[in-house]
């Protein structure tokens, strides 16, 4: 726009020329040398600022909300000026468009504006055009506005049929008319466009659609005539409008909103309820819009796609219908202000407040409701979010993406915990507290503590006895170390060392085979007390069943390096008395007790003691003896709780120990030994223990002259010990089997590694 034209209009005002120049400078026109649209808008705003008495600053434009519209003496056709005003559609530069602009430039501007609007218009949201509205402040009497200005537009713009463009223009005119008696100037017209068409909604909502249209027509006619009269009113409106310059053209005014709510109530009394689709269809069909458009409106407004309209959705739909009826194109995406609040309406209301602005801003919480400029972006983002939310709801997969919400089905079955190492906490199978205490003591004192091991191991099967025996033999070969390592659970890590690890891996319980012997060799759960009882049963039932593999010895049981020794006794089973006999022959049997027990006990004791040698010997003997005893005791060992058996066994073990070697002067005092034996029996974890136990047992036996005395007691004790021994045997047998498997695995690995090495070797040579 040319400067002269602007100045001309500006001159109309009372403002000082200085002001004008200041304004020009501020708006950048001076810089540019001409008045572009934005400059013009800014200039107008500044004029308003100046007229209002505010300091002439650019910021004041934005800060002063209620900036009255600049007053220009209307020197020209108001209509034209209004048109011009209407075309100032730059939402950001809601320049205070005065109603009056010199016609020629106004027109030119109008055209320019219209053209620009045209360009803008194709935009999805019609809000852009609406902005022209700043001028149109009050929408009080919206009713006829849409039509009025539409017609007005047609009338004035001639070839320009840009509805939106035209729309904004005229629409402020009807405001002045206060058609439907709406409160004058009450509601600042936020924006522009759609709000005005109150008549529309009033119409088809309440009265037959046709009548409304008719009324609107006359209204529009009236509007045209009254346009001029509106000037004064419009200025007031404009003033208010200005404050809404940043408004969202799609905002719903309070009045409109109230109207919508009333309409909603007619259909659905409960404001928090839904309007079913059918009812909504009937209602909106009254608006006489084409079904296609109604369908589109529905798609836009039914935010949650549930086929029903909430209050927010209804208002949005209504608003869109009104807008459409007034000639506004439907947006492709739901305008921000019409979006139903994600959160409470209250929040929305609060957020959307702008001085004098319409209350309802339906923008989602995340969107700055007042930012109309950002609306398009929000519109875009929100639908995306909406879609995504829909997708979430529907669990739809992203195409080709790995992100598949639906893939919950692929429940990765976690490794079977059973096989995994359930580290069954080494349960002390020790029935008696004393045992526990003793074991604790022993444990702390000695290396091998597997108090629990025997118990845990026990539950295994009788068939293990052989293996146990064999392990015992192994143990015998092993020194204390072996035994200690076999103690597993509680034994020191160092002792356990590889053995433990192997055991653990073997038992499959510990996932970290390689890990150093950590605490818990978890004997398989089967080694619980209950299982031990089972073992007893199995003992009785199955003679000689050896569930070797089940040893469940806590990993602690390392394979005994001396299988040679083991086999003999190992073979022994409760049933195989023969073998036992042979063994027994070696040792002064009468050790009714399970040699295993004895061994164990001995082991434990031995651990503490330094009499390893003796222990070894005794272990051997005991190993031999144990089988024998076991065989003999198998029958008897069945009943009784482990504890008892253990105690008995221990005593028995002690007896055999004494008996067998007899003389081995075992350092450990008998009592402690006995206890240890007991504990050992209960634990019965590792083969290693056996050897030591045997030794211990021997020592104990040797040290204790109680054999003869306790004959009577011994029987029970023996029986108990037998039982325990059997259990221990089974446990050990199982452990043995596991260890053997581990050994096989390791051997295989070794073989494979060797093969690889050989394969590589020739290359290395090269």
């Amino acid at each position, binding site marked *: 726009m040319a400067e002269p034209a602007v100045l001309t209009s500006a001159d109309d005002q009372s403002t000082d020329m200085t002001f004008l120049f200041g304004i020009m400078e501020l708006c950048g026109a001076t810089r540019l040398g001409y008045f572009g649209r934005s400059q013009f808008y800014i200039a107008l705003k500044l004029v308003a600022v100046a007229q209002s008495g505010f300091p002439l600053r650019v910021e004041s434009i934005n800060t002063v909300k209620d900036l009255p519209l600049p007053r220009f003496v209307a020197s020209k056709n108001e209509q034209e000026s209004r048109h011009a005003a209407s075309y100032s559609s730059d939402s950001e530069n809601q320049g205070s468009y005065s109603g009056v602009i010199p016609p020629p430039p106004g027109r030119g501007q109008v055209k320019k504006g219209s053209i620009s609007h045209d360009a803008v218009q194709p935009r999805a949201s019609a809000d852009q055009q609406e902005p022209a509205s700043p001028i149109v402040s009050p929408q009080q009497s919206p009713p006829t506005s849409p039509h009025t200005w539409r017609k007005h537009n047609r009338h004035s713009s001639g070839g320009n049929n840009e509805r939106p463009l035209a729309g904004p223009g005229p629409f402020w005119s009807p405001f002045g008319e206060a058609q439907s008696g709406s409160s004058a100037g009450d509601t600042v017209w936020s924006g522009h466009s759609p709000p005005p068409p109150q008549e529309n909604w009033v119409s088809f909502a309440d009265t037959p659609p046709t009548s409304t249209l008719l009324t609107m027509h006359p209204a529009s006619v009236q509007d045209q005539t009254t346009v001029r009269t509106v000037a004064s009113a419009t200025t007031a409106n404009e003033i208010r409008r200005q404050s809404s310059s940043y408004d969202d053209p799609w905002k719903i005014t309070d009045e409109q909103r109230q109207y919508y709510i009333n309409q909603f109530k007619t259909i659905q009394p409960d404001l928090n309820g839904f309007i079913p689709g059918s009812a909504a269809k009937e209602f909106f069909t009254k608006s006489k819009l084409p079904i296609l458009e109604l369908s*589109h409106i529905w798609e836009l407004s039914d935010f949650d796609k*549930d*086929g029903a309209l909430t209050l927010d959705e209804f208002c949005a739909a209504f608003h869109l219908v009104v807008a459409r009826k007034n000639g506004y194109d439907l947006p492709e995406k739901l305008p921000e202000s019409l979006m139903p609040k994600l959160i409470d309406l209250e929040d929305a209301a609060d957020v959307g407040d702008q001085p004098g602005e319409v209350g309802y801003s339906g923008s989602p919480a995340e969107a700055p409701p007042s930012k109309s400029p950002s609306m398009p972006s929000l519109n875009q983002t929100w639908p995306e979010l909406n879609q995504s939310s829909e997708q979430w709801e*529907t669990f739809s*997969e992203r*195409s*080709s993406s790995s992100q*598949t919400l639906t893939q919950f089905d692929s429940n990765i079955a976690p490794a079977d915990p059973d096989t995994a190492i359930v580290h069954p906490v080494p349960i002390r199978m020790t029935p008696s507290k004393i045992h526990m205490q003793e074991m604790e003591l022993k444990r702390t004192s000695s290396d091998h503590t597997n108090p629990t091991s025997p118990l845990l191991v026990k539950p295994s099967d009788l068939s293990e006895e052989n293996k146990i025996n064999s392990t015992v033999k192994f143990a015998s070969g092993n020194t204390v170390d072996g035994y200690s390592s076999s103690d597993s659970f509680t034994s020191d890590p160092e002792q356990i060392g590889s053995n433990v690890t192997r055991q653990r891996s073997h038992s499959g319980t510990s996932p970290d085979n390689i890990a150093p012997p950590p605490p818990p060799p978890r004997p398989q759960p089967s080694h619980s007390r209950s299982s031990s009882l089972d073992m007893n049963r199995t003992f009785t039932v199955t003679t000689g069943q050896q569930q070797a593999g089940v040893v469940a010895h806590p990993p602690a049981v390392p394979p005994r390096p001396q299988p040679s020794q083991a086999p003999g006794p190992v073979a022994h089973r409760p049933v195989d008395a023969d073998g036992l006999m042979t063994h027994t022959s070696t040792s002064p049997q009468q050790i009714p007790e399970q040699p295993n027990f004895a061994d164990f006990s001995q082991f434990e004791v031995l651990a503490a003691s330094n009499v390893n040698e003796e222990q070894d010997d005794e272990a051997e003997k005991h190993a031999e003896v144990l089988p024998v005893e076991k065989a003999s005791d198998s029958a008897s060992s069945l009943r009784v709780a482990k504890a008892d058996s253990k105690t008995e066994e221990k005593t028995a073990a002690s007896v055999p120990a004494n008996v067998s070697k007899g003389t081995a002067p075992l350092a450990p005092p008998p009592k402690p030994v006995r206890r240890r034996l007991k504990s050992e029996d209960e634990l019965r974890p590792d083969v290693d223990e056996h050897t030591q136990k045997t030794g211990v047992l021997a020592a104990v036996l040797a040290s204790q002259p109680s054999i003869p005395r306790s004959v009577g007691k011994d029987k029970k004790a023996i029986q108990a010990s037998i039982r325990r021994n059997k259990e221990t045997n089974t446990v050990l047998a199982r452990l043995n089997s596991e260890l053997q498997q581990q050994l096989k695995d390791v051997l295989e690995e070794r073989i494979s590694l060797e093969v690889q090495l050989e394969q590589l070797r020739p290359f290395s040579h090269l």
Partner: protein
Amino acid sequence: MAVCIAVIAKENYPLYIRSTPMENELKFHYMVHTSLDVVDEKISAMGKALVDQRELYLGLLYPTEDYKVYGFVTNSKVKLVMVVDSSNTALRDNEIRSMFRKLHNSYTDVMCNPFYNPGDRIQSRAFDNMVTSMMIQVC
């Protein structure tokens, strides 16, 4: 990645058909039409089979040298047919399923619109946009 997407009503008339304007659309129309036979065959084979997502998804109906045709049937016997270009690196089955799922969701949204009469051609812009998004991937 689809080159053609069609929605066929229960009575086997198209509610919506759209193809990328790469070549003669009629060819795609014909392919879709012929695929209906396969669809019907599969539907009848299903009998009273549980109607779950799997059954709804019919899978590859039949392949040609250039294209593959996938089918999906809804509970109301509305069929969704999709033609994809074989030259595309074989789309995984899951992707096809997801595309059908999206189509199905959009179709239900269209159905939810009270202004839409079942049996009318689908003129929903949202549906169009969604289909476009799927087809644009091809290019």
